[in-house]
């Protein structure tokens, strides 16, 4: 069964460093998303991406965050200068154009020290 894959599974970075989290969405999907879950809190929407542009973003997704689809298969989340409060599990997700079900990856656990 096709699935969303994410790398790395766990990354530790120093505060102020740039981080890129990578995702390979399901191949025939056209909507892509990033969500995050801070330890002990609910899963929060960050950004949605469709047709090579951001379609919606939350208040969390400030200028420190960016997303890119550099080729036909990868979807990346970049955090330009990480802060301690960016420590969280980041989930990538994808959806077919006409579908209503969002499929999640296993997550990338980011620890900022």
């Amino acid at each position: 069964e096709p699935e969303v894959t994410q790398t790395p599974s766990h990354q530790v970075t120093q505060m102020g460093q740039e981080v890129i989290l990578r995702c390979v969405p399901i191949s025939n999907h056209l909507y892509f998303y990033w969500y995050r879950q801070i330890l002990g809190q609910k899963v929060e929407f960050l950004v949605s991406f469709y047709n090579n542009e951001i379609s919606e973003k939350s208040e969390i997704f400030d200028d420190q965050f960016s997303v890119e689809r550099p080729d036909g298969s990868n979807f990346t989340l970049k955090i330009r200068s990480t802060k301690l409060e960016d420590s969280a599990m980041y989930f990538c997700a994808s959806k077919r154009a006409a579908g209503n079900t969002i499929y999640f990856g296993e997550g990338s656990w980011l620890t900022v020290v």
Partner: protein
Amino acid sequence: AQSVTQLDSQVPVFEEAPVELRCNYSSSVSVYLFWYVQYPNQGLQLLLKYLSGSTLVKGINGFEAEFNKSQTSFHLRKPSVHISDTAEYFCAVSEGDPNAGGTSYGKLTFGQGTILTVHP
């Protein structure tokens, strides 16, 4: 704006007992409803979904949920739980896009999660 409330943060039960995890939502438009499960150290897995039609939906692992529009609820049930059902369960909603025939944007709003612990 939509919101989701999961009324119980933790639910302990004994193996083979029935369980109900409660979820209420609020939204000004039609919604699609989902339950996801997160096993320890794993990602989010779709358990079941309500899009339209029959209000009783069945999912994987013997779970089912009933959509109640008048009570704005989407409670999750299982008649007999197993140790392996121990996990965190998340209720989520998304709104339909009227410009896309009701297809969801895909922006999910999650509840706080309910930790189900099944004891032997």
